[in-house]
């Protein structure tokens, strides 16, 4: 019996992940309907539950990949990895209205620039208030507040210390998790109910994972518009943080 289970777990990891995610979404739909009378979106509950499970997975395995470190759920790595995530995001563009997308184009680009500079400044400012004084650490910690990829890329380019890199990544991951979890609650406040505001949101909130998760939990139809701008976020951050923004920090300290 146990032998069969082991064999299935080893050979069918992706199929197991499909079944597990399906079950989680079914439970979330029930919770949404019965407990919240549909006021909280089933996808939002599923994403929160997945984050909670990722936290639990980290506790019981001590690994870095959340629930996917538990052998039975290793298939989540492939299912929720960057390859299939990007593939599915591109697929959502099939329903995009090109006219709407073009209308918000310039505003989206402006939001994108703000979404890089503002988090960087806030991150570097808070790092300063916590006693960091060297330009390399300040820039790395500021970059981590942009996305969790911009942080380590900037840190590696500037030669930041390992604890600073780890802190920078932690900041970026926390930002993505916060965006995923709080977007549905803040959606009304942000006026997040049309393609234009979704593109602004994608530019400002950054991180494809955060925006993708947050919009999926708010309104599926807005996902492609947010993703359209968010996809440039990490690239722009990796471009500006180790260069222009670092030089500004260096000039200031």
């Amino acid at each position, binding site marked *: 019996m146990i032998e069969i289970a082991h064999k299935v777990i080893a050979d069918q990891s992706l199929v197991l992940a499909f079944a597990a995610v399906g079950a989680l979404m079914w439970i979330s739909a029930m919770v949404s309907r019965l407990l919240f009378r549909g006021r909280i979106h089933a*996808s939002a509950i599923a994403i929160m539950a997945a984050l909670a499970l990722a936290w639990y997975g980290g506790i019981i395995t001590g690994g870095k990949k959340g629930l996917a470190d538990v052998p039975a759920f290793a298939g*989540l*790595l492939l299912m929720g990895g960057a390859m299939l995530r*990007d593939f599915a995001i591109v697929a959502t563009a099939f329903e995009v209205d090109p006219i709407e997308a073009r209308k918000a184009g310039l505003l989206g680009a402006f939001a994108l620039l703000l979404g890089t500079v503002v988090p960087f400044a806030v991150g570097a400012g808070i790092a300063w208030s916590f006693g960091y004084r060297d330009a390399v650490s300040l820039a790395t910690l500021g970059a981590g507040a942009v996305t969790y990829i911009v942080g380590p890329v900037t840190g590696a380019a500037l030669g930041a210390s390992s604890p600073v890199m780890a*802190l920078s990544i932690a900041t970026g991951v926390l930002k993505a998790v916060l965006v995923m979890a709080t977007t549905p609650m*803040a959606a009304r406040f942000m006026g997040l109910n049309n393609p234009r505001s979704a593109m*602004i949101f994608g530019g400002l909130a950054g991180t494809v994972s955060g925006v993708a998760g947050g919009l999926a939990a708010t309104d599926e139809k807005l996902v492609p518009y947010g993703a359209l701008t968010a996809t440039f976020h990490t690239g722009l951050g*990796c471009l500006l943080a180790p260069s222009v923004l670092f030089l500004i920090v260096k000039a200031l300290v």
Partner: protein
Amino acid sequence: MAIYGTALLALCTLIGVALGEALGMALHVKANVGGVGIAMMLLIAARLWLARTGRLTPGLKLGVEFWALMYIPIVVAMAAQQNVLAALEGGPMAVLTGVVVVAICFCLVALLSRSAGAHHD
């Protein structure tokens, strides 16, 4: 045939990601610059062309739309593999930065989307 749709999606994704890598290299950036966004624009263009020439068959649409529908389950799987523990254990500085940055960004979204709405409507 559904596979035509999935293959079209794959082609757009591959070209987009490759162009994003090329853009990153040209800009001397260690990241993919807008690969997914370029792929999305390619797919939008492909759809317009297919519709105009009458080649947008139900089978082809199904091959793309299935993946669009799988998007949320994939995001749930993505959420389940985040290093949430490390994010929460990053200490007060990481938590403070994360919360402040998200709050400010959300306020800016509210500001920009409202002002934009006022201009256009």
